[in-house]
């Protein structure tokens, strides 16, 4: 998933804009989640203070990431977990495949994990002959459809219930009764997946937070699939991004205080799983082995750069819902596992600017993302930084850079600016005294959607000076 789709971003976006089902789904979903978030954060008296605290905790952790990672690793090992490191996607998949082989695993259930999507884990496991089943309802549908998620926390935001019913009929031979409505489809998926859970040898999960001072993993979820994936199978493999650390349990509580409220508007997710090592001697159940795979895959390269702040992200999805561009085009157009404003920074930052240089352009820089972010990440600032990098590396259309450069030459020489102003106003009054509806070249895009206004015959400055004023 960290190789871009063959189609350029803008072509994908244009397709999304004319996809009626997607447009309907996006309107409903992003609207509801935004309302829910505003209510949820507004509901707690210390909501804004908790955001400040969470931001400070994330900033402190990222500034001292080496120390806290070491502490986490030592404590997780002391609790009996095996800790591994994967430098990139290929190393991560190779590692998980070899762990599965070593434990003689045939059947795998997966909880939701962004990292596993990022490294394309399923393909590798299936190629090694294992049965892998996604167990989050949305991810399950995605897997059956061979589709990709379009939202960090609502993977099938782009599908209607009719499309899901069709998938269940086609792939699982569901009857009309099974897919009569959303509750029936949910019950049907529960039955299908319960059998998978009970028969699985290995459960794979993501990690929302890793607590340094106890070596604990925290996984949040609503369906119970995360609990089952990390409890029923005899082996649990957790994939975590390098930056998922919080110093201690009290800091974890603060992060959790803003996470679900920002994401879905819930006070807490239904299940907050906190796992410290494998099953202990007197535990009646739980996995006998816990493997924690710490994945870098471009993350450490962001440390101490102007993009470091994106590592504060707690993956709530609020910036997606708040973003007017995301609201129009949905997640797929971005072509990355990490869509929306956070993805427009994270994807080129971690996976390379060259193939992803379009994404930082996909913003009107309105700042709604920064406003919605529970840890107040300055996404617009980093979009600008990436645009500057793209400009420096010649990754933007030449007419933009050249045009701005010519403009700058005039704009730093008032006599030339006045001359250019007079000439363009003369031409404009001659060619389009009432404005324009069909401009050529780069401005054609403007007039496709809007009238271009007429220029003033006389500028304000000319009028002002005519009155003899300075």
């Amino acid at each position, binding site marked *: 998933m960290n190789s871009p789709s063959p189609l350029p971003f*803008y072509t994908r*976006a*244009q397709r999304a*804009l004319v996809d009626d089902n997607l447009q309907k789904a996006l309107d409903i979903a992003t609207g509801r989640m935004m309302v829910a978030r505003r209510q949820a954060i507004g509901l707690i008296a210390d909501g804004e203070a908790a955001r400040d605290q969470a931001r400070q905790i994330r900033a402190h952790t990222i500034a001292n990431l080496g120390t806290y990672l070491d502490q986490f690793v030592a404590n997780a090992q002391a609790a009996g977990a095996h800790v591994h490191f994967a430098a990139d996607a290929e190393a991560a998949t190779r590692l998980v495949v070899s762990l599965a082989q070593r434990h003689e695993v045939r059947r795998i259930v997966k909880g939701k994990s962004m990292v596993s999507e990022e490294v394309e884990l399923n393909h590798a496991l299936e190629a090694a002959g294992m049965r892998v089943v996604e167990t989050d309802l949305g991810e399950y549908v995605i897997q059956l459809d061979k589709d990709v998620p379009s939202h960090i926390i609502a993977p099938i935001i782009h599908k209607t219930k009719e499309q899901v019913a069709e998938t269940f009929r086609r792939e699982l031979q569901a009857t009309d009764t099974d897919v009569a409505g959303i509750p029936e489809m949910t019950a049907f998926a529960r039955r299908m997946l319960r059998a998978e859970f009970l028969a699985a040898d290995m459960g794979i999960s993501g990690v929302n937070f890793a607590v340094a001072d106890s070596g604990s993993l925290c996984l949040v979820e609503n369906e119970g699939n995360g609990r089952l994936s990390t409890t029923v199978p005899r082996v649990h493999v957790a994939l975590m991004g390098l930056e998922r650390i919080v110093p201690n349990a009290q800091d974890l509580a603060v992060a959790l205080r803003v996470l679900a409220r920002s994401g879905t508007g819930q006070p807490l997710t239904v299940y907050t799983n906190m796992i410290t090592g494998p099953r202990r001697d007197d535990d009646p159940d739980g996995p006998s082995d816990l493997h924690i795979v710490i994945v870098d895959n471009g993350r450490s390269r962001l440390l101490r750069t102007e993009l470091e702040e994106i590592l504060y992200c707690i993956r709530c999805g609020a910036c997606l819902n708040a973003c*007017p*561009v995301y609201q*129009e*085009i949905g997640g797929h157009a971005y072509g990355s596992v990490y869509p929306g404003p956070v993805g427009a920074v994270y994807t080129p930052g971690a996976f390379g600017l060259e193939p992803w240089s379009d994404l*930082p*352009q*996909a*913003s*009107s*820089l*309105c*700042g*709604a993302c*920064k*406003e919605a972010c529970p840890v107040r990440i300055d996404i617009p600032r980093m979009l*600008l930084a*990436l*645009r*500057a*990098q*793209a*400009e420096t590396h010649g990754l*933007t*259309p030449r007419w*933009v*850079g050249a045009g*701005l*450069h010519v*403009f*700058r030459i*005039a*704009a*730093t020489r*008032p006599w030339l*600016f006045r001359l250019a*102003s007079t000439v363009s*106003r003369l031409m404009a009054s001659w060619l389009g005294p009432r404005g324009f*509806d069909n401009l050529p070249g*780069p*401005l*054609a*895009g*403007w007039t*496709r*959607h*809007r*009238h271009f*206004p007429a*220029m*003033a015959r006389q*500028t*304000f*400055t000319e*009028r*002002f000076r005519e009155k003899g004023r*300075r």
Partner: protein
Amino acid sequence: MSLPASAAPPGPRPTRAQLLVTCLVDHFAPDAAEAVVQVLERAGVEVIVPDGQTCCGQPACNAGARADAAAMARHTIALLERDPAPIVVPSGSCTDMLVHQAAALLADDPAWEARAREVAARTYEFTQFAVDVLGLSPACRGAGTIAYHACCHGLRGLGIDAQPRHLLGTVDGAAVVALPEADTCCGFGGLFAVKLPDISGAMLDRKCRQIAASGADTIAVTDISCAMHMQGGLDRRGIAVTVRHIAEIVADGAA
């Protein structure tokens, strides 16, 4: 209506102000600048218009053309430094450029960074200056139905929301109604509207639908750039609504 604590610097109320016209207002909406001058002069503030104004560099900054943006910012800063009077800008975007972006663009040159900060400290968007610095509640008169759209850089860059709403709250004779999703971007975004016109157009479409649903016949804004975009969209869709700079509405009423 509650107002934020005044951002006014301690000391006497200013009697002079420099107007940074901004290139878009100068070329596409000179009436808006005239209105700013009228409002300020009626409040007893002498307005001067420094010579040599071009563009503050905001579009280049947004495009990531840092060197070009920095050059234009230096030019603008230099011409505003010639006078110690506070600077009034009829645009949230250009104000944000001078107040926040310029110093960041010039950060590798400490002398210029300091000059940028000095200018930033006395730069105000028009409604900010009118309400926070001058404490104006002009007795305006208007007609019809007015709604306010909050332009992004003013709202989220500068924290401007109460000030324009306060000014509109004093308009007599016109009904002021709420615009649904008033704080959602109209889709302009500078070069965004030209580089990704269909996405921008979809956002504009939504904004036009909300404007039509609001029942307003006039939309008040603090940025002419967003006004051009929205007016162009409304005209194309045959929606008979006028988008105006808020200074014009304030100036009108008190004439």
